[in-house]
């Protein structure tokens, strides 16, 4: 149920505000907001560069509330999820989190998300988009309840090398033993929080899940605890740079949900997205399994890979060719950045077989706007390993207290 406001009809105020909105508005210097899943969220607070460097050098606070959250519970919850996603959910223990994708009957990705096992028979699935219809249809024949709980849980992402130190200051004892993809419930001065060592930056970081009633108190306390650790609120643009460096994909940017595509072959399989490691054929039946087995033996038609491109101009929306002349098109860039940390011109690109092998050389066509005069530049690129940036600190337990 979505209620914008008791007094405001939805057509007057089409976007919701998150429980952190009051603080976001105070800190926003340039009024740069974007809609995300029905909420007003900050795109940039101050400058993208400032915010990005805080992710890699200090600690950042990012409002994650619009992330779509589903509560999945009941005696068949494990069986239901094991049939839904391509991974083996039976191996996911309570207190653990797993990144996963789920597919339609043709083995094409409906969406991706993180699955939190809160208890033996209770899970939370977080995704970038709404897919309640698919989740409910998948529940036919299972004793399980599926409900959207997006609005009942406020969420913050605390990411960066000093994030552990901030949490310690915050008063969260014992958090040093929390491993990557671990999850636990903690209580700080009467405020109950669920904390997971997860994130979208590929760096050391945590996500905090709470009752919206405590949202502002938690925000204020984190800001106070992080004052000497360079804490900073960030918007989506800075996060986007970090997520590309980390090699994470975004729905509707790097792939379109199979439930949304209309044209033939615009949907993607996990193999095409380079997510082979998420597909466990030994996990029992899951939706799309038979189609994926067939695809696996035939080999993917295309693949989402990392590109390291010459020069320093990000290859936004660039087409990819086999040679400099550009007479044979083999794909397109889906996400592109100049990586400030790697000092490399990086991109995620969907490339046709057989040109996606590691080390292959391809050419990208970059359009440059020189004071409204458009120029075309063909730049050579190599297919390289992802993630582009993966510091050890993201994994070390206990984390360093910087």
């Amino acid at each position, binding site marked *: 149920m979505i209620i914008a406001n008791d007094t405001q009809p939805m057509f007057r105020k089409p976007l919701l505000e998150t429980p952190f909105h009051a603080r976001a508005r105070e800190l926003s210097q340039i009024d740069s907001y974007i809609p995300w899943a029905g909420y007003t969220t900050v795109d940039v607070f101050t400058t993208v560069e400032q915010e990005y460097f805080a992710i890699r050098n200090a600690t950042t606070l990012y409002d994650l509330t619009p992330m779509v959250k589903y509560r999945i519970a009941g005696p068949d919850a494990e069986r239901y999820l094991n049939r839904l996603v391509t991974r083996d959910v039976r191996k996911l223990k309570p207190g653990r989190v797993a990144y996963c994708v789920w597919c339609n009957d043709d083995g094409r990705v409906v969406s991706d998300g993180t699955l939190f096992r809160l208890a033996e028979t209770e899970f939370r699935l977080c995704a970038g988009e709404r897919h309640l219809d698919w989740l409910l249809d998948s529940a*036919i024949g299972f004793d399980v309840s599926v409900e959207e709980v997006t609005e009942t849980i406020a969420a913050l992402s605390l990411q960066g090398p000093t994030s552990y130190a901030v949490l310690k200051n915050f008063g969260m004892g014992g958090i040093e033993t929390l491993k990557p993809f671990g999850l636990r419930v903690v209580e700080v001065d009467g405020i109950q929080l669920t904390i997971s060592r997860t994130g979208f930056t590929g760096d050391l970081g945590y996500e905090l899940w709470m009752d919206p009633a405590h949202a502002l108190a938690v925000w204020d306390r984190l800001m106070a605890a992080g004052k000497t650790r360079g804490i900073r609120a960030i918007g989506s643009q800075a996060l986007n740079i970090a997520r590309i460096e980390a090699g994470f994909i975004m729905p509707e940017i790097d792939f379109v949900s199979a439930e949304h595509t209309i044209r033939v072959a615009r949907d993607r399989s996990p193999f095409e997205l380079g997510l082979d490691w998420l597909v466990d054929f030994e996990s029992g039946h899951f939706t799309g399994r038979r189609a994926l087995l067939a695809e696996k033996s035939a080999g993917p038609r295309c693949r989402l890979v990392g590109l390291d491109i010459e020069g320093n101009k990000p290859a936004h929306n660039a087409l990819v060719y086999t040679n400099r002349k550009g007479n044979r098109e083999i794909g397109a860039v889906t996400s592109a950045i100049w990586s400030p940390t790697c000092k490399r011109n990086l991109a995620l690109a969907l490339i046709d077989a057989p040109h996606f092998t590691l080390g292959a050389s391809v050419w990208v066509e970059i359009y440059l706007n020189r004071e409204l005069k458009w120029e075309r530049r063909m730049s050579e690129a190599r297919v390289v390993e992802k993630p582009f940036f993966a510091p050890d600190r993201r994994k070390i337990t206990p984390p360093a207290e910087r």
Partner: protein
Amino acid sequence: MAQNFDNIVIGGGHNGLICAAYLARSGRKVLVLEAADRLGGTAATRQFAPGYRASCAHLLHLMPRALIEELNLAQHGLALAASSMPTTALSLVGKPLRLDAIGPGSIADHSSADAASYPAFRARLARFAAALQPIMAGKAPRLGSDGWSDRLALLGMGWRVRKLGRADMRELLRILGMNIYDLLEDQFESPLLKGALGFDAVLGSNFGPRSPGTVLTWIYRLAAEAGAGDTGLAQPVGGMGALADAVAKAAEAAGATIRTGAKVDRILIENDRASGVRLVSGEVIAAGSVISNADPRSTFLKLLGAEYLDTGFVRRVQHMRARGLVAKLHLALDDLPDFTGVDKAALGGRLLIAPTLDYLERAYNPSKYREFSESPALEITLPTVNDPGLAPPGKHVLSAIIQYAPYTLDAGWDTGRDALAERAIATIERYAPGLRSVISARELLSPVDIEREFNLTGGHWHHAELAFDQFMMVRPVPGAAQYQTPVAGLYLCGAGCHPGGGVMGSAGRNAARQVLKQAA
């Protein structure tokens, strides 16, 4: 695990038995498991009162002659008590109307114009039916397939329609999506004739005569009848159950094993392949493949389980329309009732109560609001006229299909059962005064009773509504329309498959052919 079988057929209805017979004749080691203590499913002949027997499906007119001959059913005990049975449309305002498939019958008593145009109209429909009939004898072609058999089947369909000639093809395409009400209003003037013809177009379906697609359902019925040869409406000696018994004998003669009282609890899966079944008793029986004569929803959601299927497929199975709209009335009679104006010979045929198209449409209306018809449309037979053995000496049985009786009844079928029986009897009595005085026992099977009695989800005699959106290559649902299912080694052979239900048997015969294409 006592024995290993090549194929297990779940359900000993006529389609299951026919499928088993064909498989056994091809050398497969086949086991048929029937939950009930008798064979035949909805075409079984049951005792509904001491000494009185009736069959839920009460007429044989759709089964291909080729099938009956291939399985030597005559040699295995199938004999007809009657064939080419006449149809009589009953009327309260004038003479009843006798209908023949080809000739004008007694239409001239009602309208000379109709009598003149009827033969040409029927002849044209017969040509349409003949063009569509071959579709039923094989698997439905897959759309968007690269397979040659699919392409040839589609080309063949197109070619047969084209071969009708310009005028007929145009007419077929004009009327195919129409409703039967408009077509008959265009064609005829006698309300009784229109009511009788309209009745056959909606019989057994969730449609009124004004529902779109009812011309298609009618032509489809005519196409199946065309395949059945010239026996017309027929009644086997010993009731419809005798047909199942003959098929069972044919199957057993070919080496099939048939067990009754063996209810399947689960279809077993090993390495993503059907590997056998577990019975309610706990007994496990292994087999190379499993063929289900159960309705698609039971097969996939109860016997197999959603966890072995993909979400999109399960959604289609769940959304498949399969709610029965037909109830069945059986009356034990001390004497033959006297239908006003109907001669004795006609009582051995079928009697219709659908005096006008509006009567039919009005009978349909309440079903949309989960109520049964106050004045139902009825197809009545008196099987004992042709086959006295179905009742004690000198006594009779009346068997009537009641339309419309929705599966979901607001009042509930516990109270609805008696109320509908009363309505139906009162309706018949208007045409046969004194009927009530000769009734000694009665049974009404609501769609809910049919569901329970025959393990038939929704109680629909076609297992899945026979309509444009559940037709041929999308019947019962895309992904299971060629008797094969998404699960290797699991097949369907029931009425939910192409070409549908009625006691036709083509689904079982076609399914056997698909099973035989795969290794045992």
